[in-house]
């Protein structure tokens, strides 16, 4: 396969509804500094998010999914650098923008819901004030109008007695209520894209179920796009239009949700699906994931080869690139056709 065929548009799956996607990530590579060396934690990742589409990003801890998601904000953590690639949002390359140019976009057009609401909210400020600050900061509304809008937003995210809650401090709210406040802040300026980084992982299953329903409802009403990051494919199955799976910094499979769950092709995706705790039936033991992702012990070829039940000697030496095997279903595994034949009796 030539490098031209694997870069850019060829690997960025088509967006759900055709037309120009809202976000396009092309060959994104992000390095972290480890002593004197730069190590790539995200390698040549390409995908797109259509308008009104929800894309899921799945993978284990340390696979680079959060780093990829944070690239939507044109910045990354200290000690890291973008070594290559582009993130195009509505026609502009976010990675070229300065901090000052990024300011009106961040929070207003692209917003973030992080994992832990307790550490996101300012503990010494009433939660209503924190929403007002966002609205005023982006010049959406101010003063009494901003407060009215805040109460309206709190109602929209299902907080009981919104006016009363607005006068509370974060510690006076439950974890689920705090996360609703964070979601209210994220949707306050009616963004085009909302990035959700494991927003329900710290919460109870019942609270998680209510928040997922709420997010689905908000998306349907507002038509905004979303990038939803999670290690639990069960959660993504429920809320996403398409799902992308990452392993060791690389995108290894991307497909529409139903297609990915009905016909997962990459052995790693099959393992991740088998790992989702379910009530109905136990999954076949052979598909379960073995071992852990070890960044310090990756072969030259496919990163998953050491843990893969289907691996062959070539897997350890030949790098795998995403290739389209069905319309809009891309897999980075040369053995994908055999695996399907072996797995279906």
């Amino acid at each position, binding site marked *: 396969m030539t490098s031209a065929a694997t870069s850019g548009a060829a690997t960025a799956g088509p967006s759900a509804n055709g037309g120009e996607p809202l976000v396009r990530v092309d060959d994104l590579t992000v390095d972290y500094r480890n002593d004197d060396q730069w190590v790539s934690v995200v390698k040549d990742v390409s995908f797109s998010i259509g308008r009104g589409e929800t894309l899921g990003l799945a993978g284990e801890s340390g696979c680079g999914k959060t780093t990829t998601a944070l690239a939507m904000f044109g910045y990354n953590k200290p000690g890291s650098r973008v070594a290559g690639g582009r993130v195009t949002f509505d026609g502009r390359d976010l990675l070229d923008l300065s901090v000052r140019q990024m300011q009106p976009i961040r929070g207003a057009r692209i917003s973030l819901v992080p994992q832990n609401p307790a550490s996101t909210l300012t503990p010494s400020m009433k939660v209503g004030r924190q929403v007002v600050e966002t609205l005023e900061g982006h010049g959406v509304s101010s003063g009494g109008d901003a407060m009215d809008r805040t109460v309206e937003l709190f109602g929209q995210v299902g*907080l009981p007695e919104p006016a009363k809650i607005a006068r509370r401090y974060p510690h006076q709210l439950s974890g689920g209520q705090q996360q609703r406040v964070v979601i209210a802040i994220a949707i306050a300026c009616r963004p085009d894209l909302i990035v959700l980084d494991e927003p329900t992982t710290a919460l109870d299953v019942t609270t998680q179920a209510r928040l997922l329903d709420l997010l689905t409802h908000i998306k349907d009403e507002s038509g905004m796009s979303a990038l939803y990051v999670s290690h639990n494919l069960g959660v993504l199955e429920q809320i996403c239009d398409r799902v992308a799976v990452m392993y060791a910094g690389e995108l290894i499979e991307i497909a529409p949700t139903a297609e990915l769950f009905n016909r997962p092709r990459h052995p790693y995706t099959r*393992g991740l699906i088998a790992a989702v705790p379910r009530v109905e039936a136990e999954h076949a033991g052979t598909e379960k994931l073995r071992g852990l992702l070890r960044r310090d012990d990756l072969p030259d070829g496919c990163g998953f080869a050491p843990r893969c039940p289907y691996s062959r000697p070539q897997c350890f030496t030949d790098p795998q690139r995403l290739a389209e095997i069905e319309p809009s279903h891309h897999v980075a595994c040369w053995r994908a056709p055999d695996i399907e034949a072996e797995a279906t009796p």
Partner: protein
Amino acid sequence: MTPLLEVSDVRISYRPRRGLVSRLVRALRSDTTEPVPAVRDASFTINTGETVALVGESGSGKTTLARSIAGLIQPQRGSLRFEGADITRPVYRRPPELLRHIQYVFQNPASSLNPRRKVRYSLGRTLDVFFKLSKAERRDRMAGLLASVHLDPGYIDRYPPQLSGGEAQRVAIAQALAAEPKLILCDEVLSALDVSVQDNILELLRELQAARDVAYLFIAHDLAVVRWLADRVVVLYHGRIVEQGTVEEIFTPPHHPYTALLLDSIPGKGEHQTSALTEDASTVGTAPDAGCAFEPRCQHRIEGVCEVEEPPRLQDSPTHDVLCHLSADDRARVQVRSAAAAVAGAPSEEI
């Protein structure tokens, strides 16, 4: 047969603060209300080599109950018996043999292991407290413990921050095993881990149980993870046991309406019957003074009964009891109907 652990009618409340300022504030507010018990009238048993899952949302009293079994909190009422002997006393009044037999594994291994001490120290300390071993025996035991949780011998010289979440939880489990306990209290041991790692730890727990005949009290908020581990399940809501039975009984309708809600909340099963938009968020986390604690959130409440009278404990089978005003037949009827309604996309009716 005497059960390994017998919890009978346990009631635990957190005492109001007794400092001068707190008392003064209460006096000025003429606040004489009794504290709401964190656990009330809890009774269940755990047999040797058995896994009992304790399931409920945060604040339901799961950890409080586990802590009382470990002797870290004293119940106001009721009794705890271990192999027939009364153990309703704080940890510092328990004989060393009993301390050895009940071990605790916490939710977050990163905070339960001492970050400045090597794995060698954490494991060795437990061995030194409970056993008199020669140097060679001590070394062999530690190697055996690491092997039993599938960690290489080299891990003995690692510090906890050098371990991944799953590895650290394995060390924490090895530390509990070092005491050779009969009962391990596993408090949300999976919540801090990735789903794929959760799966590995579940597998390990099953394997260790088969090899050592150890019993687990397995605390979780997610029913799906207990499905393939537990023998019996105890469902806790607001400090009360609302349903308990064998794992088959809990997962087969009719359920307690709260168990039905927990089952419905498991992600990745498509349509929900109980959505965020039908459930009023203000009812979550509070319980009324009278009647059934779950009544404000219950889709099938009986007006004039559920908010007034304490629900009876119905015996669906000798091993299965449910705290509910609805009979098993009524529950079966509404749960089948709401499942059908969810398929048809219509809201479920109340009976």
